[in-house]
């Protein structure tokens, strides 16, 4: 195994272990999306009686939301820890070692993505336990996890950028409401074609989070809708690429300062 791979593995493991050692950081991202799912699937079940609603199970319709929300929660929490590394000087000490900057970033992101994947498996298991059947089958479940990986990478990269750019735990925490707003002004609770308010439909259409949710939702309730799946991967991939580029640039600048 190459030195870089060992370094990436070590840093990723550190990110995972550090999160796992803080029960609040494990419990909250697992439970909160499930509670929101329970609340919405109970409260909005009547929505399935609207003409044109794509399924008769609101639980199946809403199951896509925890995947995006969970990725968001996990990566924000973990990036708060990354910002703490900067505040406490850990990153500076790491910069004195032979670890390359890009290795550090990949290791950090790898850890965050691993956490998000574990959560995704949990959400999927809960959905299946409560009677949701994936229209895309076992292959769809595998693709769903791959999609979750890219979504989590996108959020993680943006969060890491914020952590590296500001070096402040508060600044990273303040990203949560921003992402949360994007979630709420998306098609999370109703298909876009059933949104009656034109301005809200326009906002939901322009909101990239809608495409992330709709791609996961397509795998659950529609099957192999390649347009929705492709859009989801494209948005998540674009977010990852932009986030990674910004984070890498911010890391280089921070190491220069060091």
């Amino acid at each position, binding site marked *: 195994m190459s030195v870089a791979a060992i370094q990436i593995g070590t840093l990723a493991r550190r990110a995972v272990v550090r999160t796992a050692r803080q029960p609040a950081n494990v419990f909250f991202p697992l439970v909160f999306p499930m509670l929101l799912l329970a*609340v919405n699937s109970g*409260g*909005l079940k*009547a929505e399935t009686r*609207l003409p044109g609603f794509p399924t008769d199970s609101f639980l199946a319709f809403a199951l896509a939301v925890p995947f995006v929300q969970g990725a968001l929660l996990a990566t924000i929490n973990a990036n708060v820890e990354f910002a703490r590394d900067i505040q406490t000087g850990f990153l500076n000490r790491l910069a004195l070692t032979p670890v390359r900057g890009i290795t550090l970033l990949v290791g950090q992101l790898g850890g965050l993505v691993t956490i998000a994947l574990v959560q995704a498996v949990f959400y999927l298991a809960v959905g299946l336990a409560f009677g949701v059947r994936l229209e895309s089958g076992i292959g769809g479940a595998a693709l769903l996890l791959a999609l979750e990986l890219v979504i989590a990478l996108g959020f993680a990269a943006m969060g890491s950028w914020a952590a590296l750019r500001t070096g402040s735990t508060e600044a990273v925490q303040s990203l949560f409401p921003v992402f949360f707003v994007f979630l709420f*002004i998306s098609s999370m609770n109703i298909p876009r074609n059933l*949104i*009656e*308010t034109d301005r809200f439909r326009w906002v*939901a259409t322009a909101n990239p989070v809608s495409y992330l949710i709709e791609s996961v939702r397509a795998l659950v309730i529609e099957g192999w809708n390649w347009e929705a799946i492709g859009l989801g991967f494209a948005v998540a991939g674009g977010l990852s690429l932009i986030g990674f580029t910004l984070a890498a640039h911010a890391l280089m600048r921070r190491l220069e300062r060091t």
Partner: protein
Amino acid sequence: MNDTLTVARAVAWRSLNNVFKNPAIFLPSLLFPLFFFTAFVGGLSAVANIPGFDFPNGYTAFQFVFVLLQSAAFTGVFTGFGMARDFENGFMRRLMLAAPSRSGIVVGYAISTLIRWLAVASLVTVVALIAHMDVGGDGVDLFGLYVLGLLLNIAGTLWATGVAMRLRTQQAAPVMQMPVFLILFFAPVYVPLGLLKGWIHGVASVNPITALLEAGRGLISGRPELTLAAFAIVAGLVLGFAAWAIRGLRRAEAAG
């Protein structure tokens, strides 16, 4: 009594000064209700077309009541976050040493939260009116609605105060927030109680917040229902959580 009022006034002034001068603290409590309102009214207005949805004043007024009450409860919770922060940075310990009447501390935080919520409620109301909310109730009905919110705001503050006084750390935030979130959302948030089916109907039927929501919706539509029950429930919450907060204060005192 004079000591309590003096301490309460000083604590309220400091808390309001902190909140209004620090956008990072004030903006979330201001923006969250607005985003909920926008998301629910803008995104879910089609829900009003579901057969059996019988609220006469439209979905905007239906959701306004929820958002108003939710903002009341959550503004109280946000104050709890501030108290926990004051414990962590040592300010609360100094305050307890200096205050001749420590119950004035709780009263002061409650007053500041009330003023903070009035600012939030005013903005949410203006936004709802701009969104053409149909109001069927008269002045007395609307006054009743806002008093209901105000009492819920006090109850929320006292709940969060009790938690903050016992745990004295910002890590207690989910403990303050999660039960409030759950009790609010396990009520008929999106559709009337009659349209809820299954387990959520059972939970909502015994949830005390359901009566508050139904009374609030009755007041805004000018067809009051469950109003007395709602006021009795919220008065009970205020009394119960006042005891919870004061006992928490005693524990904080005992902890030094």
